[in-house]
C-alpha cells in the first residue's frame, strides 16, 4: 500500500505556529504517512542559517537584517515583547521536556519528513542556497505543492 500523504504549508515564521506544524508533521510520519512540509514566506526563516543578513541588493539586505533567520530565533505570534516572550517560552518548553524547533527539525528529518523551500520567496528575498540548512530536500514552486495536495489525504496551511 502506498503511504498516505500529509502536506502542510508553513507560511508563518512564528515559533508557536511552527511548533504546531512540526508536532503534526512528526506525528504523521510516526503514523507511517508520507509527510511534506512546504515552507514559504516567513516560514522560510525556519530553514535559514543564522547569519547577520543575506540578500543581493540593499533592500533585500535591509529586509533580511530585520527578518532574521534561524529555527531558534523565531518570534512568538503573541507576547513577543522584543524577544522576551520567546525566551520565556523556550524555558517553559524545556521545563516540560518539549523539544525546541531546532530539535523538531532534526527529528522530522530523522523520520523522513520532506522539507521543501519555496523558490518564489527565495528569489525575491534574494536568498542563496548557502543561506539554508543542509536539511532542505528541495526548492520548488506552487505546482509542486498542489500536486502533493491532489495526491494527499490531508493538506494544511499555517
Amino acid at each position, binding site marked *: 500500500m502506498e503511504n498516505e500523504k500529509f502536506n502542510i504549508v508553513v507560511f508563518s515564521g512564528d515559533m508557536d505556529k511552527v511548533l504546531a506544524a512540526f*508536532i503534526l508533521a512528526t506525528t504523521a*510520519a*510516526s*503514523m507511517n504517512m508520507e509527510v511534506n512540509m512546504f515552507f514559504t514566506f516567513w516560514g522560510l526563516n525556519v530553514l535559514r542559517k543564522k547569519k547577520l543578513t543575506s540578500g543581493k541588493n540593499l533592500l533585500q539586505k535591509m529586509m533580511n537584517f530585520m527578518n532574521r533567520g534561524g529555527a531558534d530565533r523565531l518570534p512568538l505570534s503573541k507576547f513577543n515583547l522584543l524577544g522576551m516572550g520567546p525566551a520565556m517560552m523556550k524555558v517553559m518548553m524545556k521545563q516540560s*521536556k518539549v523539544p525546541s524547533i531546532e530539535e523538531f527539525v532534526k527529528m522530522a528529518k530523522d523520520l523522513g519528513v520532506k522539507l521543501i523551500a519555496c523558490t518564489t520567496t527565495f528569489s525575491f528575498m534574494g536568498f542563496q542556497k548557502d543561506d539554508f540548512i543542509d536539511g532542505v530536500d528541495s526548492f520548488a514552486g506552487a505546482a509542486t505543492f498542489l500536486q502533493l495536495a491532489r495526491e494527499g489525504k490531508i493538506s494544511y496551511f499555517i
Partner: protein
Amino acid sequence: MKADVTLDCFGLLCPMPIIKTAEKIKELKVGQVLEVLATDEGIKTDMPAWCKATGQEFLGVEEKEGEYRAYVKKTA
C-alpha cells in the same frame, strides 16, 4: 498486563510518547507486546489512533493515579 519491552515516557508531552513508540516498535518481533509508560493523558486516545493508522494491535490502557500504561502488540 505482561509486556516484552517497556518504554518509559513519563513526563513527556504529546507527541513524544507516540514518536518514541513508533521508533521502539521497530525493535520488537511480531507478536511481542510493548508497554508504554506515560503521564500525558493524550495517550488514552492517541495510542489507539496510532495503532489504527499503523496496523498494530491496541491492547488497552491502564490508568492509575495519573500514570498511564498503554499496551501494543506488534502485528506487522
